[in-house]
């Protein structure tokens, strides 16, 4: 297995994706907690381009970008496959993982920004949710009826989005607007398969409630 380390923070959806992949493969790893207010030399050296977490280390060599790391873990370690075998299915899995990853920023801005930028982000978020609502209709998993790559990338919209909504009172998702997405999300959070891999929702909520409250207090 070699020496495996993960630099990150427990509440980050990006870091969580990597942990999910490692757990699927049964890989033991050392978790190193980062301080984003005072970035460590390790982070700055191993991810000089983006200076972001997660950074994954295998035998001392760093890999950055959560879905790049997940793909690496799938290729480097034995165990259940995360990406499908068929090239076309793989392309579909990568497509949805990219979609979920790219659109995350706009959704995030809805909660972290104010004014015009927030309104613009809300619009983009609704567009994203419309697409997802259409895609997950009558589907539990994104590709070929099997849990995998895109479903891991979906952790943000599956769990974190709802937490952000509750922590801020800003609601994007309603059952009227996005019935299929809600059905998919309910299953995603509660199914036995995922439950053991997702962080405890109440802990995530407590963390982000405190964060949003602090941000609100600071901006007064």
């Amino acid at each position, binding site marked *: 297995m070699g020496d495996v380390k993960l630099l990150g923070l427990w509440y980050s959806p990006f870091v969580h994706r990597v942990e999910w992949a490692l757990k699927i493969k049964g890989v033991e790893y050392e978790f190193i907690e980062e301080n984003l207010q005072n970035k460590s030399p390790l982070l700055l050296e191993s991810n000089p381009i983006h200076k972001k977490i997660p950074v994954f280390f295998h035998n001392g060599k760093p*890999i950055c970008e959560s879905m*790049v790391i997940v793909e690496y873990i799938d290729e480097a370690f034995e165990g259940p496959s995360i990406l499908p075998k068929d090239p076309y299915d793989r392309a579909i899995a990568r497509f949805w993982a990219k979609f979920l990853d790219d659109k995350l920023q706009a959704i995030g801005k809805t909660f972290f920004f104010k004014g015009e930028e927030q309104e613009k982000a809300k619009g983009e978020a609704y567009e994203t949710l419309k697409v997802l609502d259409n895609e997950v209709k009558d589907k539990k998993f994104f590709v070929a009826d099997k849990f995998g790559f895109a479903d891991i990338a979906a952790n943000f919209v599956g769990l974190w989005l709802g937490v952000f909504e509750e922590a801020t009172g800003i609601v994007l998702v309603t059952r009227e607007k996005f019935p299929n997405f809600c059905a998919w999300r309910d299953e995603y959070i509660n199914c036995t398969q995922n439950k053991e891999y997702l962080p405890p929702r109440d802990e995530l909520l407590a963390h982000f409630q405190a964060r949003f409250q602090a941000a609100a207090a600071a901006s007064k």
Partner: protein
Amino acid sequence: MANDEVILLDFWPSMFGMRLRIALAEKEVKYESKEEDLRNKSPLLLQMNPVHKKIPVLIHNGKPICESIIAVEYIDEVWKDKAPLLPTDPYERAQARFWADYIDKKFFDSGRKIWTTKGEEQEAAKKDFIECLKVLEGALGEKPFFGGDNLGFVDVALIGFYSWFFAYETYGNFSTEAECPKFVTWAKRCMQRDSVAKSLPDQHKVLEFVQTLRKKYGIE
């Protein structure tokens, strides 16, 4: 593979379309190219890429693959007996994917801002652009190609932008050769390959195209 039907929905100045042209040429895959009018998108494009409605789209035996980097990976996996683009080592593959992601996230935007902005914003864009080139030069190191001795995944992802350099330099009033000679040496080396030379449009035509876009957006 003899009875494969391969169609590429493309737009001649697109550096993303160029990636697929090069990959298909490297693999010696016969395909039909359909030029899209982006002001009047074809029913086929809207059907094959309903989520983004963008080119390029690769259609293989009737099934669409969207997003250029994903399509290049698909091409590499399906036509795996010729001209491998991704390396075999998982760590090297992760690095290649990281750089493709960097090109899409950072490089494209900085280049675009050079011809779409003026004054201080443009100066900042130029700085960013040159900074990106220097980072990419660092990643290339002493190798002839990002892929090593042969054209690889990152080379294919990046070289199309070179056809836009003349336009960037004209509007940004700078010389890439003066700022990053190593980068230009690499680009010229790529251009010596048939697959690249035949896939990139004439840089003067690209400049004319950018001129019409600037008029259309009222940037003059």
